Structure formats: C-alpha cells, structure tokens
C-alpha cells in the first residue's frame, strides 16, 4: 500500500529584497528556500500511518520544481519517506497551482497510491488550491483542512475531521482512494537530525520530465495555468502609530488607551 505526499519547496523573502527587472516576481537572490511548513505535518501523518501499520506501507514524496528542490526532498527522506520523486521541465516555469496539480495528478496515476496528501496551503503564496485541483484531475474523492485522520491502510473508507472557522470541527467519512489536504497541528512533526539528512543524501531522487508523464508543453507553465501574473509590487505599508519613549512611558500610554476604552463602556 502506498501513500503519495505532495510537497513544495517554498520561498521566503530575505531582508531588503527587490522586485525583478520585469516586475513580475522578486529577484531570486533574495529568496530563502525551505520545505513548506504544512508539508512537515502531511508527511508526518503519512509516516505515522506507515509506522502503525502491520503491513508494509510505502511513503513516496513528490515535488514539482528545479534542482534546488532536492534539498527539501532530502529532508523528507530523512524524516521517514521511502522514496522521492522530483518533476521538472523548463516548460513548467511560471506554473500556477492548477498547472502544478495537473503534473501531480499524472504522477499519482503512475504511482497509484491509496491516499494523496498535500498541505492545506503553502506558506509563500497561500493559494490553498493545488491539492484539490489535483483531485479534480484524478476524479478522486477529496477534502480539505483535515485536522485529524483515522485510516487503516488499504481500507475502503477513512474518517477525518475538518477544522472550520470559529473553533468548530466537522467529522466526515470519505471513500478511498482520496486526496486530503492536511492542516497544521494534526500531529507533532519529528525532528530530522543533520546526520540523517546527510545520510538521506545517499538515497536517489527519481527525476521525471514531461515525456515520462505524457504531458504536453501546453498543459504546464503559463499555458496550463488558470491565472497570469501581471505585476508584483511592494505595497505601501499601513503603519501603526508608534508609541515612543522608555518602557514606563509606553506602558503609561497603553494604560491610558485601555482606560479610555473602558470609560466608554458604562
């Protein structure tokens, strides 16, 4: 039995970043890459199912990205994934979540897992779309924002809870195979020591291209996307009025704000 976990190497902005010449993205020199925070949780959930299972379960991680994504895949291998796949072709440059989802669905068709996990969203662009779009391309049952999961490997159904707004949970039963997007806090991701990451460097990462997945250039990249970036800009930041002074003065002003507020309520 196999669980496929889609992971993303996200980018965070470094200090004093600048927008690229063409105005559509940030200068890559200022991007700091790391594994998406949600993917720590979805991978951990898969590994937990594997470890609790009497029968063998294979956890495969897949990511769509250029060579530098290998670093994040290695981290996943160190954290208990059995195999890693990276998919890339230059034609994939500029893909939005819909285009990425098409690629992931092709990998899932190839791997035939019982479950496909993704994170609810990525910490860089936060589309919250890739997982569910992949489900549509696979025509599989799907659900988002899973905060707890009960699944016996190979079972026909799974029971999970979705985390709704306002501190409410909704329990749902779903047919498998299914695509689930996993929310933060579902488990406690394990630590991958530097040594285990280094050792994972010895494990091979399978690299696939468009041809391996029988995809055409028009299905990925900008051509395969459902939106197009026109312009990226740094917004004028609304700025709070800073209360200056030493600690005593600042606290005094804050106390005054509180008193003023309470004075309004009878």
């Amino acid at each position: 039995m196999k669980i496929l976990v889609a992971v993303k190497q996200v980018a965070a902005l470094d200090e004093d970043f600048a927008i690229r010449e063409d105005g559509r993205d940030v200068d890559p020199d200022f991007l700091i890459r790391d594994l998406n925070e949600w993917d720590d949780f979805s991978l951990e959930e898969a590994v937990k199912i594997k470890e609790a299972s009497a029968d063998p379960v294979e956890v495969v991680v897949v990511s769509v990205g250029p060579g530098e994504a290998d670093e994040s895949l290695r981290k996943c291998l160190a954290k208990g994934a059995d195999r890693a796949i990276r998919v890339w072709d230059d034609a994939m440059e500029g893909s939005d979540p819909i285009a990425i989802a098409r690629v992931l669905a092709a990998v899932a068709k190839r791997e035939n897992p019982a479950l496909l996990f993704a994170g609810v969203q990525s910490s860089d662009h936060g589309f919250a779309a890739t997982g569910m779009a992949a489900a549509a391309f696979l025509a599989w049952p799907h659900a988002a924002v899973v905060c707890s999961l009960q699944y016996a490997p190979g079972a026909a159904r799974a029971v999970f809870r979705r985390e709704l707004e306002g501190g409410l949970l909704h329990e749902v039963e779903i047919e498998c195979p299914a695509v689930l997007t996993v929310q933060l806090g579902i488990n406690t991701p394990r630590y991958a020591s530097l040594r285990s990451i280094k050792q994972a460097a010895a494990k091979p990462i399978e690299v696939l291209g468009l041809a391996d997945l029988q995809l055409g250039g028009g299905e990925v990249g900008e051509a395969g996307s459902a939106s197009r970036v026109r312009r990226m800009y740094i917004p004028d930041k609304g700025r709070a009025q800073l209360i200056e002074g030493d600690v005593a003065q600042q606290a005094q002003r804050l106390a005054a704000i509180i008193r003023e507020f309470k004075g309004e309520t009878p």
Partner: protein
Amino acid sequence: MSSSRTDAVTRILFEAFSTAEVRLFYALGFAAIGIFLYGVYVQIRKYRRGAPLRLEGSWWGRLTDMGAKVLSHSTLKRRDPAAGAAHRLIFYGFVLLFLGTATITLEYDILEPLFGIRFWHGGFYLIFSLVLDAAGVALIGGLAFMMYRRGWLKPPKLDYARPDRAPGDADFDRPQYRREDWAFLWTLLIIGCTGYLLEAARLVWLSGRPDVWDTRWWSPAGALLAEALRALGVSAHGGEVLRVSLWWFHGLLALCFIALIPYSKVKHIFTSAASLLARDPLAAQRLPRIPEAQEAPGVAKITDFNWKQLLNLDACTKCGRCHEACPARAVGAPLSPRDVILSLREFANATLEGGALPAAAELDVHGKGPGQIAQETLWSCRTCMACVEICPVAVEHVPIIVQLRRKLVEDGDMDPLLTKTLQTIHKTGNSFGESKRKRGSWSKSLPFKIKDARKEPVEVLWFVGDYASFDPRNQKVTQTFATLLHEAGVDFGILYDGESNAGNDVRRVGEEGLYEVLAGANVAALNGATFQSIVTTDPHSYNTIRNEYPEFGGSYRIEHYTSFVHRLIAEGRLNVDRQLKLRTTFHDPCHLGRFNRGYEPPRELLRMLGCEIVEMGRSRANSFCCGAGGGRIWIPDPVGTEKPAQNRIKEAAAIPGLEVYVVSCPKDLTMFEDALKTTGNEGKFVVKELIELVREAVAAPRPTEVSA
C-alpha cells in the same frame, strides 16, 4: 648471655608453624591471589566489551602526570583539605605496609631460596620496623578520621539520596553503598589494629629472647601494646596463644581483603590510578567526533561507551565533589553527575560482568529502569564542566552526557523549543531566526565603518557571535567594544554575513551533524580571510574555536577580549583616564574560566580600572554557572524552580556594599540581568559587562584625536 647481636636481629617468619600450616597458608595465599586475578580478568573483560579508543600523547607523559597527582594527592586536597590529608595518611600508610610485605616476600620467597641473598636483618630490619609502625599509625589515624567524618560530620556530599529518582524506585536509596563504605573502613581498621596486637603478642611471647625484647622499641606501637598486655597479666605462653590466633585472623582477613579487591570499592586503588593515566585534559573543552565506523550517533547501549569511559565508571569513589559542584543539582534539577556515573556503573556491572553478553535490547542505557539514565536528567546538564574539573580521579562526565544526548537528538527526543532552535540555526545560521544579512546590522549606527574581513586583510579578526550580534542588550556592548577598538587604533574587521553560530552549544546539545555544518562553514570563512589573530567577546565561541576547530581544519591564534584589552591598556593604546573606585565582584564565565583557565586577565583588568574586587565564595575554578550552557538557554525551565542565575545572584547579594556584578560573557549578561530583577535585587547593585566598565574608565578622545 651476650648482648643482642643487632646485625642478626630479624623476625623469623612462620616461627613455630608446622610445615603443614605453612603450606596451608601458602595455599590460601595462592587461592586469594587466584580469586584476585579472576576478579581482575572479569573487570578487564568488561572494559574490553566497550568500544575501542586510542589515547593521544606519550605514555611516559601520562605516567609522570599520573604519578605526580597520586603522590602529591593534589586532586584530593581540593575543596576538602581535611579529607585530602586523611586520605594521604591512609594512602602512604597502606603503600608503605604493602611495600614492606613485598620486600619481605622478595627476600623470603625469591632472593633467599634462589640466590641465597638476605638483607632483611640488622639495622635495615630495625629501621624497616620503625617505618612500618609509623605507616600503620598513619593508616589507622587516617581511617579513624574518615569514620568520624562519615559518621559524625556527615558532609552533605556524602548523602547518597538521588535527585533523579523518587522514593519507591528500585534504585532510589542505596544502602548497599553505605554498607560497603563502612565495611571497607572497618576491615582495614581491623587489619591494622590486629597487626599491632599481633606484633605486641609476639613481643610478649618472645619477651625472653633478648634480640627481640631488647629491640622492641623499634616497633613503638607494638611495644606499647606489649607493655599493656603484660600489665594485664598476659604471660609468655598467653602471648604465644594470642599470637597464633591473631596471626591466622589477621592473615586470613588480609588475604580476604586482597582477594576481594576487584569485587569491591577497594578496586579504586587500580581503577582511579588507571583513570588518571588515561585522562584527557581537554575532555569537556574538546568533545569527541563521531567515529567514521559508528552507525548510529551517540550512546544507546552500554557497550557503545569506550573502554576508558567504562573504566571511569569504576574509578568513581563516590566522593561527592561533582554532586556538590553541579549547578543543576544545586537548584533541584534531576541531575547529579555522581549518580549518572554510579547508575551507569551498576548497569555495566549487571550486564557486562557475566560470561555471555546479554541481548542488545537489555543493553539500552536510556530509560527509567534501574541503572538507566532518564531524558530529564540528561537535558538538565549545563555542560559547565564543574564536575569534570573537580573530580579527583579524572572521571569525564560531560562527554558521557553529551554522547548520551546525541542519541536523544537523533531520535528527536527534545524539548519542542530546542527542536525549533536547532532548525532555526540550520536555516539561518543563528539562533535568533534573523536573516544572515542582518548579522552586521548592529554596526550601522556607529560613526565609522568596520572592515569586512572577507574582502580585505586585517590584523585582528573579531568573531562576534550570535548573542553579541542579535540580542539588543548585548548589541550595546558590542558597539562599545567596536568603539574601543577603533579608538585604540586596532586594525580589525568582522566577517559580517560570513559568520555563523560558532556551534559550541549546538555540539553540547548533541547535534553533532549540525555542529559539523557550522564549524565547516566558519572554518571556510576564516580560512578565506587574512588576519594575524582572532579576538572574541563570546567565551563559548572562544572555547570551540580554540579547542575544537583545529580538528576541522582551522587552527588560529585566538584571545578572549579580557586579555586583549588588558594588553591594549598595558601597551598604552588605551588610557585609563579615571579610576572607577567601584566595589565589584567578578563572575568567571564557565567557558573562559574553568574551560580555558582565563581567571587572571579579567581581574587584572578590573584592578587597572581602579575597582575593588571582592570574591564570591564560589569563584575561579569553582565559579557557579549561570545556567545557560549546554543548550539550556533554548530549553524552558520548569515553572516554580529556582534558576542557577538566581542562586548565583543571591550569593553576590550577600557581599556587603557590592556595587557592580561584573560579567564578561553575553549569555551571563542576559541571565544575570534577568535574575537581578526576579530575585528582587534590582536597585541594590547592577550587572555590567567588563567592556562597559572599560568604557567608563577610558574617556572617548576628542574628535581630532581619533585616527581615521
């Protein structure tokens, strides 16, 4: 009757014993030696079941070092001079008595029968008797004091109550230790006393023989007792009977004692000396790398320890000095270095002394079972090396704890905050989670530009460190130091973004893989720069760069700022314009003081500034850790417990009229300023970095005087 012929004076061995009796004695003697040798074999087999280890350095150097320590008892005098003196009496008494017996055996069993050589008679014999009598008195005197100390004085460090077990646990109370301690004392004492009685009995028995009776005062103690016996009405015949019975009793007891040496506390005679022989003087300052061959990092099974560490476990005599010195234990944490060692010893004895090695699962030293070490115990350690530094028999607790931690780290068994910090350090190269590019931001507000040592050569490379670069309070100290260097005209530079966390504490947490990454990065940055020497304001960085980086390809001349600034003032490059006349106390930072013996430069510097130094009770090698080391600054303290820094501030607060508590480490500054507030001592005295005092004493030059 002629007067005694002193040259014929001797003691006839086995006098009036039948051949059968002599043979019986020899048989028993050989049996005792056989039991002894078997015991030694079991112990050596135990050590060999550990991992291999190559000792560095010359054997001759090790031998002379050990010899000096053992003969002078220099390590035993520390922090307990009375016990040191008493042990010296016991040691020399025992050694002399042993040498005496060996001398007799040498003549009686070897030289005389084989070569006909005899020397144990006449003048030599008489002086021999006197010396041994004195040795016996020393032995008994020392033992008596130890009994008084243990039974009446009851020093706290001899309390075997464990902080890492609760009542009800199998190995919570260890009455067997107390029994063994007292048995050891009494046995030796009885052997000694019966020796004298035996001597006295013989004298009474042979009182008719002039060459014995007339020379009896060469054995003063025996002679006195003989007089007492005669006064009590014991006849020569009575003496004969007494002598025979005492002879067998004393002899058998002594043989039992010898036979049981390897099975009891008495083995410390060998194990402690061997431990001193095998010691690593940089044990805690320079931690061991993970051997290439080793699969899983750290120690999981008892057999993962190397033979020296297993030997360390047996060298411990439960003196309690480490227990007393440990800052974690002092504030009630579930850690006592003594009990880590003793637990592991019991575990090793239970598993490694049998004929066959038990299954791997039974060799796991982590856990809460008897002899195992719990996670909370290991995570309580501050790696301050107070234990290693004071141990008289060179037990190396800190490397043992760190190697146990390595396994916990590999398994992810850490406090969540610590886990997060390690991930942050891996990602950003610092423990604050700030972008690498901001590492040099503290320098932007200065009126001068600091050279980038990555781009141009400098004379002095200043390794700033995490806390000094990112913590707001410490940034002020860093800026002050930069200004002082600038005013003194020092040609210095920093690595800016090229510097990462030096890794000292990451290594001590047990994340060896991350340490290798950090050390590798820093060594690459340093090797790429051109400089004469390194100076640092951070003792942790100082320790690891000085002692550990050479193994990673980076050997540099490095100083802590205290000796550097001391030299600047001595050479006149900085002038003390006003004497501060402050009443201060100096807190020795662990990594500068105890780790690297840097006790004097900060004190000399303080004196140069015109400050009066009042030492705290625990100073220099006995300085009390602020509690931030070993990664503890990244692990939350349990709610409601006293922190080591608070304990320390209270110690300082007891100094009347204290004005300034002086520190020279960024973590100390953070911990003690916090403790000053939480102990309610704010307003009574202040905590200041030594650099800040230097700034107060050295006036900033007028603008025209500062070189560009």
